[in-house]
């Protein structure tokens, strides 16, 4: 198998730069909608040491000093630019797996007669010209290696000008390269697994590649065994293979301003449930438990601190937003204590299983809402999340950070087109 992973560079920032050339060469961050964390950073911002997910309030001084420009997320724009990018890339291979908003795998079996490095450059050039987005291309024999090749291209560890083809390397060259890459860069190796493996002396990709897969499988998981095989060029994941469903779905945000009363907390929690439930239904699962938590700002040590979570079991698993909301709000009411400045709330849907026959439940009004939910998801998918919502989500969203730094709907709104003089 030969395949490419194509990944947009600082995708959200790049989308913004297409329509606002003044951002070129400047440090730019894109902030998440309502918690003010960095969700995309330009190279200039990364160089300043700003981490992914860093809260805006923490980088304010740095921003002032270095002139970092912050933008709110413009998801309508990013979704449109993503569609354009993916469609252009499909010109290069009929086998495409869109993996995320800015990444796709392209199957290259049957393209071996081409110079794949040149082919990678052609992809890069075309996406850049047609859509305006810079991308990097990693080429290898397995998905895990293609991801790693892409990482190398992006960080300039190997390859040239944003294209890295591992299939052109000898095994000695690979060993040298992999010895210098930490295992946390490997696809599917999370922070916890990294820590455990480092504890056993496995720190770099080369060390993991040469570890005994069977032993590690017993100690960790079959997923790690597959990863090791893939690192050795043995494909374990097909192109269209659907990754296993998530075992828990979480949704949480920090508030744009402190929240004191129960009502805005309820709105926020209902909103998070709506987001999480949408994900739950999209993967065809139902949840058996709903967890809700609130906390004050731990960085403000002088203020009274409160942090508590509560898990509400459902008598029968469900994917119904209204029902999950009711359970979460019931939990929230038990948790809530007046007199605190709440900074964050969150929910988690737990005990997930495959959706089956219609369910009934403690909180249920014995009415099956699945059709309502399907319509809700479809409409929210078409017109943006939150077009339709349950009444508990509220409409005022005081706790919501203003999206005042959001750029225009350059490609989605007639009244917001780019202007030319």
């Amino acid at each position, binding site marked *: 198998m030969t395949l490419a992973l194509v990944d947009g560079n600082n995708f959200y920032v790049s989308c913004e730069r297409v329509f606002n050339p003044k951002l070129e060469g400047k440090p730019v961050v894109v902030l998440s909608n309502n918690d003010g964390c960095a969700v995309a950073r330009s190279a200039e911002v990364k160089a300043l040491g700003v981490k992914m997910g860093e809260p805006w309030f923490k980088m304010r001084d740095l921003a002032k000093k270095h002139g970092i420009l912050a933008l709110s997320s413009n998801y309508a724009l990013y979704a449109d630019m993503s569609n354009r*990018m993916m469609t252009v890339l499909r010109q290069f291979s009929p086998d495409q797996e869109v993996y*995320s908003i800015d990444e796709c795998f392209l199957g290259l079996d049957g393209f071996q007669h081409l110079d794949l490095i040149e082919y990678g450059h052609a992809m890069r050039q075309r996406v850049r010209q047609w*859509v305006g987005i810079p991308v990097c291309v990693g080429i290898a024999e397995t998905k895990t290696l293609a991801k790693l090749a892409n990482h190398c291209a992006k960080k300039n560890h190997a390859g040239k000008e944003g294209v890295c083809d591992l299939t052109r390397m000898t095994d000695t060259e690979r060993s040298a390269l992999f010895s210098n890459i930490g295992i946390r860069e490997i696809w599917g190796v999370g922070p916890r697994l990294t820590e455990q493996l480092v504890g056993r002396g496995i720190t770099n990709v080369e060390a993991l590649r040469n570890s005994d897969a069977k032993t590690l499988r017993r100690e960790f998981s079959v997923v790690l065994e597959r990863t090791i095989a893939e690192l050795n060029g043995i494909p374990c994941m097909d192109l269209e293979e659907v990754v296993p469903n998530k075992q828990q779905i979480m949704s949480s945000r920090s508030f744009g301003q402190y929240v004191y009363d129960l009502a805005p907390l309820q709105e926020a929690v209902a909103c998070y449930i709506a987001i999480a439930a949408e994900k739950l239904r999209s993967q065809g699962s139902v949840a058996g438990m709903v967890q809700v938590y609130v906390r004050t700002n731990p960085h403000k040590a002088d203020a009274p601190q409160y942090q508590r979570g509560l898990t509400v079991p459902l008598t029968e698993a469900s994917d119904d937003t209204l029902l999950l909301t009711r359970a979460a709000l019931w939990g929230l009411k038990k948790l809530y204590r007046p007199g605190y400045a709440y900074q964050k709330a969150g929910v988690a849907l737990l005990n997930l299983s495959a959706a089956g026959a219609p369910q009934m439940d403690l909180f249920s009004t014995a009415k099956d809402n699945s059709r309502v939910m*399907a319509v809700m998801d479809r409409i929210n998918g*078409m017109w943006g999340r939150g077009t339709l919502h349950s009444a508990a989500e509220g409409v005022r969203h005081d706790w919501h950070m203003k999206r005042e730094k959001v750029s225009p709907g*350059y490609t989605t709104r007639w009244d917001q087109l780019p*202007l030319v*003089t």
Partner: protein
Amino acid sequence: MNGHQVPGCATLPGERLFAGLPQPCIPQPGIPMLATPVPAGFPSPAADFVEDRLSLDEHLIEHKEATFFVRVTGNSMTGFGIHDGDLLVVDRALHPADRSVVIAVVDGEFTVKQLCRIPTGVLLRANGNGHSDIFVGPDQELTVWGVVRWSIHSI
């Protein structure tokens, strides 16, 4: 990708797109809806002559993924029939030829001008009421953002 793409279903980078997202059932423009069976005995006399209805998208857009719309402000290009408030159809897939009308980036701003290659460099020609042309020397950087294919003017 076609008319069935769902706009607005954004995910974060690294987060998987939904596999089972319900697709909205929107008939594609331009495709005649003859899939429904016609009752026996009533053959439609028009069926043999069915053709796609004319579509402006088809007429104006050659490369869907590379085409963007922009709005004109000012009167620097009236000589080219491009007026204040006009809607321009811009194709980024095309290579700008000499004398193409292009969207260029000058000092971080978009401007619509005619690209003219001259011996000493490139001239971005305006053709309006006294607006001056912009000269770009060989040592200066010029970004051509896209090639203007159509100007849509409201009467």
